[in-house]
């Protein structure tokens, strides 16, 4: 059964300042931020919180087959050697979808139209990081739910479109998770709308004592 987290607390997904800066070509030892930069950052962190609605959904699916080049999750083939390696010790695959809603993407469009691209870039970085933190939060929830049973999530996760994991898999994940419940749509080219939405795959493996 898929688990829906329709209202993830903002404090659970609000990124650290350094995490936001890293998305904007910031170098901790070289980059010098002025008062104006700090004030804008502070302002946009507040504003992005006000316009974001963090939410997520995840589900566990059996790994039903393995080959050298990929694996089968439920009835669906996932051709990806890197995913196969990640889930080598996993008994189940975990599919996740996360979004912060359409607020940030809409505001980025508005800012761009108003020739305020520098503000748009800051908001884009915060919203992207928040979306990733939704996945982190769900991974934490999953870890808590399964720890007592002697399981743990894999240390990493993959998202379609990265490495050898085809972006077209987003459609299968969308259907399996019924991600429309989060207000997410998927285009013909497998792009998720609103833009600050992301899918990911990880595994659930036994916590083995050596």
């Amino acid at each position, binding site marked *: 059964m898929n688990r829906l987290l329709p*209202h993830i607390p903002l*404090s659970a997904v609000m990124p650290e300042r350094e995490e936001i800066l890293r998305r904007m070509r910031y170098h901790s030892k070289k980059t010098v931020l002025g008062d104006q930069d700090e004030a*804008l950052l502070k302002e946009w962190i507040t504003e992005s919180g006000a316009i974001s609605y963090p939410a997520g959904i995840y589900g566990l699916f059996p790994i039903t087959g393995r080959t050298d080049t990929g694996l089968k999750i439920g009835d669906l083939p996932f051709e990806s050697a890197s995913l196969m390696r990640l889930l080598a010790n996993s008994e189940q695959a975990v599919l996740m979808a996360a979004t912060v809603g359409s607020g940030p993407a809409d505001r980025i469009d508005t800012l761009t139209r108003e020739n305020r691209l520098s503000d*748009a870039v800051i908001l884009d970085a915060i919203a992207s990081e928040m979306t990733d933190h939704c996945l982190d939060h769900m991974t934490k929830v999953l870890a808590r739910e399964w720890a007592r*049973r002697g399981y743990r999530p894999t240390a990493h996760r993959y998202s379609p479109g990265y490495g050898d994991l085809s972006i077209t898999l987003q459609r299968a994940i969308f259907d399996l998770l019924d991600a429309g419940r989060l207000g997410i749509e998927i285009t013909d080219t497998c792009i998720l709308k609103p833009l600050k939405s992301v899918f990911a795959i990880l595994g659930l493996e036994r916590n083995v004592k050596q």
Partner: protein
Amino acid sequence: MTYQDLLNRVKNEIIVLDGSMGVWMQQKGMPTGVCPEAWYMENPSLVEDALAQYAAAGSSVIYTPTLGANPIKLKEYNLDKDTYTINKELAALSRRAAGGRALVAGDISMTGEYVEPFGELSFEDAVKCFQAQIEGLTDGGVDLLVIETMMDIQETRAAIIAAKEICELPIWVSVSFSEDGRTLTGTDPLTALITLQNLGVDAVGANCSAGPDTMVPFIKAMKPYAKVPLIAKPNAGLPCLQDGCTLFDMDEETFASHCVDLAKVGANFIGGCCGTNPGYIRTLTQKLSGLSPVPVSGSQGCRVSSAQSTAVLDAAAGTAVIGERINPTGKKAFSQELREGRMDTLRQMALTQTRDGATLLDVNVGMGGVDEAALMRKAVCELSTLTPAPLCIDTSDPAVAEAALRIYPGRALLNSISLEPARIQEMLPIAAKYGAALILLPLDETGIPETVEQRQDLITKLYDTVSGCGYTKEDILVDGLAMAVSAEQDRARQSLITIQWVTETLGAATVIGLSNISFGLPRRGYINAAFLAMAIDHGLTAAIANPGDEMLTGVRLASDVLSMRDKGAQGYVHAFANAPAPKAAAGKEADTASRITDAILTGARDAVAELMSAALSEGMDPRSIMNDLLIPALTKVGDLFEQKVYFLPQLIRSAETMEAAFAVLRPRLAADTDETDGRKPTVVIATVQGDIHDIGKNIVALMLRNHGFTVVDLGKNVPAEVIAEEAKAHQADIVALSALMTTTMERMEEVIRVLREKGLACRVMVGGAVVTQAYADQIGADGYSADATQAVKCAQVLSN
């Protein structure tokens, strides 16, 4: 043994609880995947024997094996219709096993679903679900209820309220914290304690999570503020797979030794959770025997909580600010938004005030023509997942107060209760039921008191009344009743004397609605700030004010230093040591040329147009401004970006500033242009069809415009045919294409093909997250760039 017998023992000894049931029964043969409670019903003698073993091992309280016997969990096995029977029979079985040696606690736990405002399960459905289970447990004869392994404070509240509404049994609660010391919805141990003990539970604590050593800090954090005994029921370490079996890595002796540490930091009831069995409990009983418990302190201070944090209202810790802005009075646009059920401005107000240092947020949605209770409930749900600042529910309507307090996943402050009969008779029981802290407003049906003595009399009567409902001085703030000095000037003095009297004589916290004092006067900020300083000097605990008001914040922090609240001026120094200094009066003005260069370097996009006009009116040559000031400054910005001294927003803001400057210069430059200047290279830029990511493309377009290119931006999701037609129409020198996804970058190749088919000689450059030089080469692109600065260089090469 009775519950009272147990309470008598708590003062002198550590009470031992039982250990695991589910994990132990799995080790005894319960198959995985079955409904545990159904299996217990099918194997009653095994379960009864297990519980009896715990009682024999020293457990003074054994838990019924009903952890998952709520209708939502049982529905997973199609057994929800048997909820009552399962709970009643397993409770009766537990009583037989206890045999009078131990009390029986009816065990309740999570449904597996998140409750609103965090999840989809409605609060009332959660309450009903738990009540169905509790009815079976009470009829089965349990001595108390224990709500355990809870990972969400709101679901915990639903279970407590469910119990309190249908029975009078003692209620214990233990929460499961992650190693980071928080539940899944972000509640820390102290916050859980404040919320739960004020809801009227009889013991609070932690269970499951990890081993007893990990649990020590959780109990330690609760103990100084616990008015009830504390429970600790840890796992036997961490679970792991060994030789095909799930085991916990801590042996009996180690487990029991760590549990001694739990007793030393204040746990009064100690048992085991996953991985423990009667052997662990026997060893635990031996280890804890003779240990004296840390007494229950009985003092939590004046504390309120949200789902994620606790706030203390204590003058000695600094003057608190209760953010006043969430109030539609006098705010037309905000009122309209609320009427339409929209929460955009409310969210912004909440986060801005939290950022500006509000200790609590006052929430008032009172206005005519709306269902205020429904609106308040919606606002409270919205705020509960948004801000960690606890809420102050501001209403005089009991129905509104109940709507807010029932759903709020923390301990709220209720603003306010007065002696007006209708108000106190209905409001007080509601506040008491949900454990809200109270603001006492010294008013009665005759109106505002005329003298200080009348105020004191009303406050005394109010306090006596609320004391009758279990309230203590720690649970209240007395309103100093700030009134407009423009009407009666002596009112300020009356408020100050009242604050001092409450502080020194009654020994309670105080609060004022600060801005009332200045009503009707000009420059109200001065009056407010002066009154705040004076009130702090008289002992004020909290002010309802705007935390974003710089003057008030400065005066408050300074007053805290001068009144010795801010020890070592640490708060003051922290607030101001690194703050930008106020702008000093300008010395010798830099010349216009330097200011133009600085404007580009610092990205002063809003000031540059004025500077350009000034430069032109001073007679500076527009071409010279462009070539000698703007372009060198922008080049320097590019260099600083490449050296990573600037980060991306700085680069873009400088580019925006350049564009704003150029907009002023453009008409003059056009007038001065002669034919020898030649045509500027034209770039047609687009995100390809199927792709809707365009922020990178927009940055490239801006940078190209900055560097003298004519840019025709076609936007995103643009078909190849359209790009080709536009390239032809604008006689493009370059077509720049962007794509972010592997599925859409293939469209770049199509664009190149269409351009060539139409015989267009323009050069093509490509970029985007997944695009590489190799891919650019493969599809026959003329250029590739990884970022905006490279894109400019690429375009310069291609256009030469």
